């Protein structure tokens, strides 16, 4: 019997638990009772996080496609082939004809290495990861307004606040151990404002539940700011001392009267006023948001408005306040921190900056590094169909299910000259790859994850990987070696982190020896720094906070006579993303065994659809069949669907309309038609 302290592989909350193993096999999970994050509790996914690890479907050997079929191959053969073929694609089409997709499921060290492999070994900035699909709007929007695109406060702040505005986050389902803190806070008297037209669990506990129209967040937030300014509720001292460009903001919201806001959002004017007064009237108020804000063609604008609302009321830089984007994946914060982004090295250092490039090139022992920002992941499919991209190396992602407009994604991936997938299961994407590399899962390796409150925490290996599977970092190092690069010889992830920390000022003080117990929150610039639970306390990272006025823009695709419903997509509590792990976990798959679509009872009655009937859902991009769930969770005219399921895949319908600045797809709004299956 052995116990290994590690970090949950699901959401960004970063709960820690012990994996219990017996004779090399996992037999259960025990939460850490001292973790400041989860305080002895876990959600249902965490309690079951051991259960997929030894599943017989795990990849145990490299696979190489011959005559159209994937065959087992030796590591030697597979690794050589990956390098040869990547180099061949580059030789024919240029360095930037290949793209590396890193993974928010992999460790910081592995993200750092894949970024290094792309830039130092293959000479391209075409590296990105699924943060593009979840919080790229946050990274862009908060970098502009605050200077840093991360959650400003800590999870413990939920215990110390008076009002929480939750907008576009189904917190109890998607960040359950933060959602439960919010539930506790309500029991102790904190007031909730839930702005989300789904009747999520937190809405049952809310002082105000605003069911505004999908895509009308800018209007709602501008309207609230109008009321706050008009009623003299703004924090003039904070505005004067800590911010700039206030006058422009005030002018831009001047005509967002409650009446105009009501018309744009579908709310009553009184609701807008009440929300503004409740939020602005609190001594300490937090804003929590997630993909309901970011996944829009105006996602960055949404984030700017949130930042402005917080600054307008002085709710930044103190306990129990702040702008708190909840990061989706267990290590999506770390993936961004480690520079798995096309325009940034680790620590958000710009590739365009020659001094930064020089620093990285020197440490990495290369003469130069590419200076032009690379392709964002969401533009990769288009780039490939336009003939600019010919090879992809995908580590631990499943774009066949997670990308918008699945039909397009499939065509592009199938037509690539080279597709390499490194994963733990034969995902839908791995199944069409030319070469598949078997990876170790979270329980089988060392490393660190960074949670949503910027806490860097360690994983400890509990069991051996199955068969010949290897940790991602080991595979990346082996690839570098075969590509003739001698600068990736590490004996452990600890050495990798030491190198990353030396190049990354916000991680400067991160070292394995300091992470025992409960990790450290960045910014942590040096080895004596205690970490930073609350950012922007005395000054914003950029100096003064910047108010950006924002105009309301409509979603890219609106319902019309042909496609009369708004479809919004998301996840369920029991599954994780494309389900490669949770659908192989008995209890979780039993809870939600199949694809479904939520439909308001009024719409259902009008269309003659009953609960559990099979329905055909179609958009301009595709059609699927799924099961109707008739529920008051959604308002009339809006449908909700989770994207976990390969059979009945929501992303066959979604629209790859991108935010012009963050390149995030508009997963939250597209137009569809719904019919009862004959």
């Amino acid at each position: 019997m052995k116990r290994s302290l590690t970090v949950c592989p699901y959401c960004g909350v970063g709960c820690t638990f012990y994996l219990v193993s017996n004779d090399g096999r996992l037999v259960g999970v025990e939460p850490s009772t001292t973790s400041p994050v989860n305080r002895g509790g876990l959600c249902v996914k965490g309690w079951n996080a051991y259960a997929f690890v030894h599943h017989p479907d795990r990849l145990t050997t490299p696979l190489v496609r011959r005559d159209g079929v994937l065959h087992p191959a030796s590591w030697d053969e597979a690794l050589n082939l990956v390098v040869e073929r990547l180099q061949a694609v580059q030789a024919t089409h240029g360095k930037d004809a290949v793209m590396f997709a890193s993974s928010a499921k992999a460790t910081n060290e592995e993200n750092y290495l894949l970024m290094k492999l792309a830039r130092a070994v293959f000479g391209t900035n075409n590296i990105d990861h699924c943060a593009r699909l979840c919080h790229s709007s946050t990274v862009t929007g908060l970098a502009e307004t605050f200077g840093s695109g991360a959650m400003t406060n800590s999870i413990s702040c939920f215990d110390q606040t008076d009002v929480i505005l939750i907008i576009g986050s189904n917190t109890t389902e998607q960040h359950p151990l933060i959602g439960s803190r919010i539930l506790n806070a309500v029991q102790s008297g904190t007031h909730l404002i839930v702005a989300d037209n789904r009747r999520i669990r937190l809405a049952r506990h809310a002082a105000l539940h605003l069911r505004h129209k999908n895509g009308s967040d800018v209007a709602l937030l501008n309207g609230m700011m109008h009321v706050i300014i008009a009623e003299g509720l703004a924090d003039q001292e904070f505005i004067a001392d800590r911010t700039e460009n206030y006058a422009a903001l005030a002018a831009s919201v001047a005509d967002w009267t409650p009446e105009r806001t009501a018309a744009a959002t579908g709310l009553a004017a009184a609701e807008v006023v009440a929300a503004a007064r409740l939020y602005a009237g609190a001594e300490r108020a937090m804003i929590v948001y997630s993909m309901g804000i970011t996944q829009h063609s105006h996602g960055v604008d949404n984030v700017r408005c949130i930042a402005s609302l917080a600054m307008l009321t002085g709710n930044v830089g103190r306990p129990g306040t702040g702008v708190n984007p909840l990061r989706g994946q267990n290590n999506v914060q770390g993936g961004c921190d480690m520079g798995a982004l096309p325009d940034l090295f680790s620590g958000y250092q710009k590739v365009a900056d020659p001094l930064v490039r020089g620093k990285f090139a020197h440490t990495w022992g290369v003469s130069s590094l590419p200076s032009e920002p690379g392709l964002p992941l969401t533009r990769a499919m288009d780039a490939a169909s336009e003939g600019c991209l010919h090879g992809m190396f995908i580590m631990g992602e499943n774009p066949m299910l997670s990308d918008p407009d699945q039909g397009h994604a499939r065509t592009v991936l199938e037509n690539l000259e080279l597709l390499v997938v490194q994963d733990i299961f034969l995902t839908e994407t791995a199944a069409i790859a030319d070469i598949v590399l078997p990876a170790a899962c979270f329980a089988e390796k060392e490393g660190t994850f960074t949670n949503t409150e910027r806490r860097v925490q360690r994983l400890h290996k509990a069991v051996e990987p199955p068969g010949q599977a290897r940790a991602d970092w080991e595979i990346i190092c082996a690839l570098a070696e075969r590509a003739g690069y001698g600068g990736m010889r590490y004996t452990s992830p600890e050495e990798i982190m030491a190198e990353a920390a030396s190049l990354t000022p916000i991680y400067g003080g991160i070292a394995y020896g300091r992470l025992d117990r409960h990790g450290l929150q960045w910014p942590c610039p040096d080895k004596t720094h205690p970490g930073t639970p609350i950012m922007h306390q005395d000054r914003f990272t950029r100096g003064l906070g910047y108010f950006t006025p924002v105009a309301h823009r409509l979603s890219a695709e609106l319902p019309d006579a042909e496609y009369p419903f708004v479809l919004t997509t998301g996840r369920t509590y029991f599954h994780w993303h494309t389900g490669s792990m949770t659908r192989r976990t008995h209890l979780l798959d039993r809870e939600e065994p199949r694809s479904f679509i939520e439909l308001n009872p009024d719409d259902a009655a009008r269309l003659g659809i009953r609960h559990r009937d099979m329905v055909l859902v179609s958009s301009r991009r595709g059609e699927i069949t799924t099961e109707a769930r008739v529920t008051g969770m959604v308002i009339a005219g809006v449908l909700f669907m989770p994207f976990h399921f390969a059979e009945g895949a929501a992303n066959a319908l979604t629209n790859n309309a991108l935010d012009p600045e963050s390149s995030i797809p508009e997963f939250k709004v597209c137009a569809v038609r719904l019919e009862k299956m004959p």
Partner: protein
Amino acid sequence: MKMLHPDQLDRFFASLAPTWELRLPILLPDGTRVIGCPNDAPHSLHGAPVAGKPTAAFFPQQSTLFTVTDGAIEEPPPADRPLFIVGFHPRDLACLRFIDRFFADGCRDDCYFRVRHGAAIGGLSGYCGPAGSLIPPAGGDCDVEFFWDRSSWLVIAYSATGNTLIADLPETAAPEAAELFPQLAAELPDENELLIRHASALLRANRVPDLFWADIGDRCIACTGCNLACPTCTCFGVQDWRSAQKTERSRMWDSCQLDGFMREAGGHNPLGSEAERTRRRIHHKLAADPEKWGEISCFLCGRCDSVCPTGIGIISVAREMVARFA
């Protein structure tokens, strides 16, 4: 009466190693205390009840029922040495007694007894509670009890196995504490005990309306931790894993807080709402089990209350129930 000084503990436990597979409370690196192997971390006999089901050694979160390779069925092999598990507080011992009876009743669960049979149980009591507080002695329900009298462990055997376990310990003059056992136990009126009996009575008298369960259910995120931490929760699910070489059937802890727990293939679900499921969780311990087994099956170990992220463990719910409906 036998006695162990703290500095003799390691030697005593080491002396059992050839015959017994020892498990005892250990202090893990982050400060979590669990029952584990003595070699994994320093032992930690003082403090609150350990985290996790103390009964997990016999009924682990996941266990193999059998494997089939080329048509031949194989059950997990028996352990080479019996377990000796130290660390059960008296309330944990009551839980163990309850599930021993449950697994033995009617069809005897051989998967449980494969490990349980022959295992020895060590109780912990005395002034070894949180901050030196007194844990009243169990006075039975185990093979051997270790009672901390603030300077050393009084060791009392209650079974032949217990006598064998401590045979080599030197005999000491019986200190007074041993005679104080019944008195010590009686001196501690336990508020939670009164509370849970009161809540049970309210439930059995049908005094708790459905609205109450809807209220509590609204605060449940279905993490299932209450069931997974509860030493008297015994529900399990079953899964098959099939590979080219073999098929494995295993069982894992299940939870009545999940919609799928009783949902039938056709969609019918006798526990189809959060309110129904929340009611079942409490009602089962406080009303159904007393009906079936003659006793409340919550022994107030407090684990579901510690593990619940939203503060609706059984003691909290009982408190709210009594406050609202008594």
